[in-house]
């Protein structure tokens, strides 16, 4: 059958598209790298649980992201269940499209400099998606933080650099959405957050 020039052109484009999909399929099926504990949990990372625990879970998260807010109760449950057998690290990954995500990360880091990172972490997530500039001053009062120190730390270059370091690390480890979890150095691909608990459960029991 003789094809019209237009049909030949369309067929060529379809062939190129199929080739692109094929190349992408090969690239996507490459095994995911496994990162070491020292890569994922630097000495200044915010951690909970036992530092000597053989299982470590690292979360790259954004305080204003709806999916991170949904995952928070599961993380809490995991920490309650496996606290002593697990090391959990929270790492900042504020996304540009969330107007208060960067400020929330700065607020958490500034609170951390007064020893109240985890209190601020819990309160920021409790706000849901209703973060605003007024929220931060309210939380400073609620946590009984030194407001002057908080304000200067909040705006300081070192706090901003600390958050940027986490973001750069996240980019290096292939984080492109929030929340992204790494369990024992391996990036988790979850279809539901309940699977997170199952994965941690298996790791703690030494099944994985």
């Amino acid at each position, binding site marked *: 059958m003789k094809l019209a020039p237009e049909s030949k052109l369309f067929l060529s484009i379809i062939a190129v598209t199929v080739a692109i999909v094929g190349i992408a399929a090969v690239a996507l099926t490459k095994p995911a790298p496994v990162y070491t504990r020292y890569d994922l949990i630097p000495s200044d990372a915010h951690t909970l649980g036992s530092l000597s625990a053989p299982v470590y879970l690292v979360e790259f998260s954004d305080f204003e992201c709806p*999916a991170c807010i949904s995952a928070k109760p599961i993380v809490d449950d995991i920490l309650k269940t496996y606290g002593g057998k697990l090391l959990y690290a929270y790492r900042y990954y504020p*996304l540009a*499209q969330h107007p208060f995500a960067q400020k929330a990360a700065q607020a958490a880091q500034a609170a951390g400099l007064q020893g109240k990172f985890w209190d601020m972490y819990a309160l920021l997530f409790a706000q849901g998606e209703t973060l605003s500039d007024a929220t931060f001053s309210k939380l400073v009062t609620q946590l009984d933080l030194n407001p002057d120190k908080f304000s200067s730390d909040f705006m300081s270059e070192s706090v901003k650099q600390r958050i940027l370091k986490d973001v750069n690390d996240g980019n290096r480890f292939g984080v492109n959405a929030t929340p992204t979890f790494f369990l024992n150095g391996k990036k988790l691909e979850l279809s539901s957050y309940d699977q997170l608990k199952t994965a941690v459960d298996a790791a703690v029991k030494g099944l994985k």
Partner: protein
Amino acid sequence: MMKHMKNDQRVIVLNRIIFILSLIGVLMATYVLQSWIRHASIVCLTGGGCTLVAKSRYSYPFGIPVPAVGLAGYTMLTILTFLRTMNEGLRTKLLPWVIGMGLFGVCFVSWFTYTELFLIKGVCTWCAVSAVNMVIIFLLAVISSHMQKRIA
């Protein structure tokens, strides 16, 4: 005569555009579908929106992942637009099928955009881009139909 030829040429160009947009749709749907099947993360301009949508039960009507419906629809449109290049008869006969597929696509993306905004409360960038893509395809098919009528 000249006007007839001009409209004929425009119908051909519109078919090319619909074909390219359908292929873009195939690529987007494939990318999103593989991530849903492999539970892999994807590039998402709306932050956690893509993850939230992928994990929602609303994104699996009758157990079928939404991107699979998109992939089927865009593949169908690609095939139809390709077949329309074979000869003039098919170009005319298959246009109502392209419009029909486009209309189904518009209804489907409208339902899913509503579901994302009001039930899932999260927006997946790829779904939003795909929705716009499908609306453009439908509009181009309708314009094409008007031109075809003028030629006839």
